[in-house]
C-alpha cells in the first residue's frame, strides 16, 4: 500500500476550494455565525456537526446562496460568491426533505437542472442515464417520486444534485429520513459516490456517528462557532474542549485541581499494596520485548525467493520496512477493555488531578504541566476504562458500585457509582454470554485506566 494519506489541510501548498473569511451572519439580534474563518479543500468530505440552532444550516445556506453573510467573505475557487445568485453558482444542494418535484418523474427530476443549462437532448439523455446508473435507479426512471421508497427518493435527490457536476455538493441532513439500517448502507454508498465523482462534499448533520463515518474532517459547531475542525480520530481522541468531548460519543468527566508532577519522579505506585497481582502473562506482554519484528520468510519462502522472485523483484532487503515500534507506555492499545489489569507504572511528568478529598489523585501523564494549579477536567472515554471485581494494578484506580448495566449486544456499558456519588461509565466487550457475566448489579467493582487514557481539558 503506497497510498498517500489524504490530508490537504496539512499541506501549506494546497489551495483551498472554499474559504470562509471572517464570516458573520446575523438575523436581527441573533448571531447565527460568529466571525468564522476556515478552509475546505477540493475532494474533501467535510462535515458540519452540531446541535440544532448551532448555525450549521446557515453556513450551508450561505454556500448555496440562499443567505448572504452580514460581514466577511466566502471565496469559492478564488472568487467571492456573495454577488452570485444561487442559480448561477457551481454549487448544488441536496435538501433535507429531498425537495423532489412531485409532478415530475425520476428522469425529469434528474434532468431538471441539465435542461436549464440548455444542453442538447442527447447530452441530457446521456447524463441522466449516467446518473441513474451511478445511483442504481435505472428501473425507476419513469416513476413519480411518490411511487418509490424513501431510500430511492434519497438517491434521486443525490443524482439530481450531482447531475450538473457541481464543484461543491451540499448535503443537508441527507440521511435523516432513513431508518438506521438503510442509513448505514447509504453512508457507505455516499462515500463511494463521493470518491467516484471526486466532488467536494459538505454535509450538515446532527448525528455524530454519521459525521465520523463519512467525513474526512468534522467541524463541531456550537453557537455559531466552529469549536474544532479535524479528522474524526482527532476529534474523538483529542477533543479541545469539554463541549466537543461531550458532543462526540460517550464520555466521563472528572473535574479537579491540576498539580504538575515531577518530570523525573519515579513511577508512582499506589500507596496501598495491590490485593492481587496481575496475571503473569499480562506482565510479560507489557514489559517484554518491545521490539516489533519484521515478518521473516520461512524456508519455503526463502527458496521461492531465491529461485523465482529474485529475478522479478530484485534482492530482498532486510532493512526494517515498518514504522518504529510504538512507545508501549503511551500508545499500546488498552487491552480490549476487558477486565484485565493494567501495567503498574505511570510515565513520569504530566499532571495529577486532585478531584476528591481523601481520594488519591488521578494521574494524567499526558497533561500539560503548565496547567499547574488550575481547575481542569479529565475526559475519559468509557471504552478506555476497565472494570473488574478485584483491584487491578493500574496508575488510576477507582472503586464503586454497579448501579446500571446497559446491554448493547456486542458491548455492555456499566454505570458505576463512586462513593461520593459521581457516576462513571465503563464499557466492556461481551465476550461471554450474558448468563455467564461475572459483574452484575450492586457489585463492588474497580475501575482502572491508564495514565494516558484521558484528555485534560480546561474549557
Amino acid at each position: 500500500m503506497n497510498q498517500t494519506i489524504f490530508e490537504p489541510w496539512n499541506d501549506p501548498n494546497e489551495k483551498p476550494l472554499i474559504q470562509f473569511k471572517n464570516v458573520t451572519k446575523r438575523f436581527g439580534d441573533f448571531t447565527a455565525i460568529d466571525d468564522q474563518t476556515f478552509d475546505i479543500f477540493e475532494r474533501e468530505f467535510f462535515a458540519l456537526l452540531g446541535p440544532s440552532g448551532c448555525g450549521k444550516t446557515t453556513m450551508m445556506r450561505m454556500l448555496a446562496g440562499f443567505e448572504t453573510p452580514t460581514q466577511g467573505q466566502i471565496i469559492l475557487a478564488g472568487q467571492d460568491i456573495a454577488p452570485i445568485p444561487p442559480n448561477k453558482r457551481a454549487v448544488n444542494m441536496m435538501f433535507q426533505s429531498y425537495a423532489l418535484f412531485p409532478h415530475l418523474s425520476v428522469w425529469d427530476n434528474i434532468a431538471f437542472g441539465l435542461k436549464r443549462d440548455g444542453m442538447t437532448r442527447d447530452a441530457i439523455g446521456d447524463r441522466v442515464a449516467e446518473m441513474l446508473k451511478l445511483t442504481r435507479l435505472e428501473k425507476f426512471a419513469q416513476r413519480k417520486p411518490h411511487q418509490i421508497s424513501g431510500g430511492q427518493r434519497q438517491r434521486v435527490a443525490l443524482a439530481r444534485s450531482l447531475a450538473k457536476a457541481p464543484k461543491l455538493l451540499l448535503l443537508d441532513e441527507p440521511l435523516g429520513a432513513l431508518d438506521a439500517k438503510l442509513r448505514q448502507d447509504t453512508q457507505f454508498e455516499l462515500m463511494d459516490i463521493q470518491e467516484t465523482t471526486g466532488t467536494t462534499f459538505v454535509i450538515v448533520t446532527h448525528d455524530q456517528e454519521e459525521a465520523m463515518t463519512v467525513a474526512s474532517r468534522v467541524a463541531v459547531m456550537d453557537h455559531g462557532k466552529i469549536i474544532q475542525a479535524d479528522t474524526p480520530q482527532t476529534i474523538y481522541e483529542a477533543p479541545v474542549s469539554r463541549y466537543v468531548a461531550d458532543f462526540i460519543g460517550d464520555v466521563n468527566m472528572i473535574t479537579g485541581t491540576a498539580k504538575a508532577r515531577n518530570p523525573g519522579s519515579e513511577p508512582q505506585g499506589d500507596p496501598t499494596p495491590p490485593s492481587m497481582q496481575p496475571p503473569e502473562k499480562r506482565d510479560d506482554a507489557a514489559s517484554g520485548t518491545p521490539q516489533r519484528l519484521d515478518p521473516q520468510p520461512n524456508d519455503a519462502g526463502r527458496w521461492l525467493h531465491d529461485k523465482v522472485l529474485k529475478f522479478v523483484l530484485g534482492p530482498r532487503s532486510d532493512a526494517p520496512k515498518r514504522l518504529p515500534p510504538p512507545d508501549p507506555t503511551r500508545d499500546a492499545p488498552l487491552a480490549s477493555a476487558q477486565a484485565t489489569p493494567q501495567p503498574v507504572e505511570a510515565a513520569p511528568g504530566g499532571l495529577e488531578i486532585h478531584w476528591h478529598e481523601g481520594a488519591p489523585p488521578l494521574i494524567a501523564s499526558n497533561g500539560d504541566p503548565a496547567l499547574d494549579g488550575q481547575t481542569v477536567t479529565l475526559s475519559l472515554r468509557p471504552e478506555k476504562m476497565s472494570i473488574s471485581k478485584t483491584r487491578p494494578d493500574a496508575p488510576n484506580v477507582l472503586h464503586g458500585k454497579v448501579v446500571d448495566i446497559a446491554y448493547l449486544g456486542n458491548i455492555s456499558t456499566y454505570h458505576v457509582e463512586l462513593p461520593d456519588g459521581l457516576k462513571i461509565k465503563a464499557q466492556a466487550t461481551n465476550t461471554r454470554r450474558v448468563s455467564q457475566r461475572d459483574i452484575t448489579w450492586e457489585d463492588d467493582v474497580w475501575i482502572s485506566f491508564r495514565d494516558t487514557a484521558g484528555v485534560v481539558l480546561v474549557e
Partner: protein
Amino acid sequence: MRRLILIFVPYLWLLALFLVPFLIVLKISLSDTALAIPPYTPTLDLGAGWQGVKDFLSQLDLENFQFLTTDDLYWKAYLSSLQIAVIATLLTLLVGYPIAYGMANAPDHWRPTLMLLVILPFWTSFLIRVYSWMGILSGEGYLNQFLMWTGLISEPLTILNTPVAVYIGIVYTYLPFMILPIYAALERMDASLLEAAEDLGCSRLQAFWLITIPLSKNGIIAGCFLVFIPTIGEFVIPSLLGGSQTLMIGKVLWEEFFNNRDWPVASAVAVILLLILIIPIILFQRNEQKQREAEG
C-alpha cells in the same frame, strides 16, 4: 349493520335533497301550464287508485322541451350564459391567483387574518352586497364620483346595466371560491422545492412557471369549477347589475317562473341547465378524485 347505516345516511341525504326535488321539477317540466294552484296539470290523484296513476302518466309529454327549440331566446341565453361564465371564471382566476399566492407567502401570523378577510363578505347578505355595487357603479355612484374628482374622466362612465357590471359582480361574489382552493394548494407546497429549482439553475420566474403553477394546478381547476358551475345559473347579478342587455339563462328561468307563471317551461329550462352542468360537475369530481389518489 353499522356500516349499512353509515352508507345509508349520505344516500338518504342525496335522496331527500337532490333526487326528490329533481324528480318533482322533471315531472313539472313534463306537465302543461294551467290557471290553477299549483299552476300546472296533471296533479297526481292517489284517491283514484291505479287508474289515477295511469291517467296521470298518460298526460305527461315533452311539449315544453320542444317549445324551447322553437324560440331562439333559449339557446341564445344558454350560450350567452356559458360565454359569460367562462370569461368571468378566467377573470376571477386572474384576480384570485395573486391574492392566494400573496396569502400563502404571507408571514404565518398574518394568515388567519387574511383568511378572515376573504371570508368576511359571506357574513352579510349576498343581495345587499350586490345592491351596494349598484350604488358604486351607477352614473352618479361612488366610482364615477371618485374618478371625476381625480380628473381622470370628465363625463360619468356607463358601467351599470352593461356586461362589465355583470363581470364585476361575478368576480366580486365568487372570488373566495377561487382563492380558497388555490390558497390550500399553494400553502401545502414545500418551500424548499422552489429553492431546489433555483439551486438547479432556474430564475425565480422560471421556478414559478415550472414548479408553482403545476403544483397548484389542482387548486386552480377546483377553483375554476367552483366559480363556473354556479355562475352559469346566476340570475341575481345579471338582473340587478346587467340590465336588459344581459341575457343569462338564470334570468330567463326566473322570468318564466315568476313573471310568466309558466312553471312547466321554467322547469324544462332548469332540467336542460342541469344536464349542461352535469358535464363540468363530473369533470370536477374526477379532478378531486385524481388529486386524492396522487396524495394517497
